[in-house]
């Protein structure tokens, strides 16, 4: 029930809906909780048919790079 995956917005509907693609599968979701913040190409996390979060890709990449760097230098 609480399982959510990040899907990429492929089209935006005129009624507050969007089609997202997750691993080759397309699903229609609602954007009520993101408003104008979402555009085509964005990754959003959806639950029960509603997008609840837009992924900040730059932040995601920075955090992952930092983790990789920490682990490869065995800073720990």
């Amino acid at each position, binding site marked *: *029930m*609480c*399982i*959510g*995956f*990040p899907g*990429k917005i492929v089209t935006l509907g005129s009624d507050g809906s969007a089609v997202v693609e*997750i*691993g080759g599968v397309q699903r229609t*979701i*609602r954007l*009520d*909780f*993101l*408003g104008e913040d979402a555009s085509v190409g964005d*990754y959003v*996390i959806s*639950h*029960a*048919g*509603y997008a*609840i*979060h837009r*992924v*900040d890709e730059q*932040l*995601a990449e920075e*955090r*992952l790079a930092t*983790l*990789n760097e920490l*682990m*490869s230098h*065995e800073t*720990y």
Partner: protein
Amino acid sequence: MKHIDEYRDPELARRLLSAIHGRAGSIGRTVTLMEVCGSHTHAISRFGLREVLPENLRLLSGPGCPVCVTSTRDVDIALHLAGINGVVFATYGDMMKVPGTGGRTLQKLRAAGADVRVIATARDGIDLAEAHRNRQIVLMGIGFETTAPAMAAVAAACREKAIGNLSIFSVHKVVPPALQALIDDAELAVDGFLCPGHVSSIIGTAPYRPIAEAGKAAVIAGFEPVDVLAGILMALDQIAAGRAEVALQYARGVNPEGNPRALKLLGSVFRPIDADWRGLGTLAASGLVFRPEYASLDAVARFGEPQETSREPKGCGCGEILRGVKTPPQCPLFGNRCTPALPVGPCMVSSEGTCAAWYRYHRSGLEAGPARMNAESKKLRRNSL
């Protein structure tokens, strides 16, 4: 899949694991972390993390699975509503096999002729109501802060479109009161919590402050192996340094302030109420019921409750398992009288349930005795067979 595959990188996971072993070794004593999200429970079992983590690190599963914490009484009410003539009862699939009093389930009710439908999104309720104007549609409103906003949006859409043949049975629950109950539970000695990623997408980081104030680590973590391992490492770092704070591992899925739009709608449709949790009892302001403006959508007000007294399934350890004081193999029913095909308690039903995860991913290990299965669990499991 972007934002998933990178977090399944075996090399990065190995390095994190090595760091975790080092950190746990430096702490020396046994460290107990509790995950309070069914998706964490599932991920930890699915990716076999329990088997490769240090001996002195205990992972407990808390009350993180919505159908599992739903009381037998609420399951009975759902069964009552679904059995009313002319009602189309629509629910997320997890609820179908959850047993009410006497082992009755929605699935059995459907087999006996009731119109029970599985929906993937709350929005399907509106489509059902519009497609069946002469029927009464009842939606099962279940889930934590992650899914509750979707039901709030449906309620708002119902009012907007003046849909009169839809009502909602809300057993929605909110996570912070359950965390507080766990913190206050003297029987449960936990050093830190892995906090739910997608609940936090809605509520943000602030509601976890009481955990840190109680001197325990709180790390909001994602659901891939690298996320869970990085979350565990961040918690161990705090414990090793004697710190207790709210940390965010899952930054790609959570804004620290949460989702203000979803919170606003949630607060305008629902208000908090005391609610019964399986295993935890009645927790103040931990459930969500309709505000007066939406009271006409309340399915129980519309159709009433069943007269019969509700009874918990005999011998079921779900309550203690949800509080983290027992692991599934310590329940005498686990794996013999209670299986995913014929579940006695809800923890064996949902894929997010602790017993279901253990049954699916650890059972062969429990029977064959692999290298790294928790010795105590193995012994208890043998005794229970």
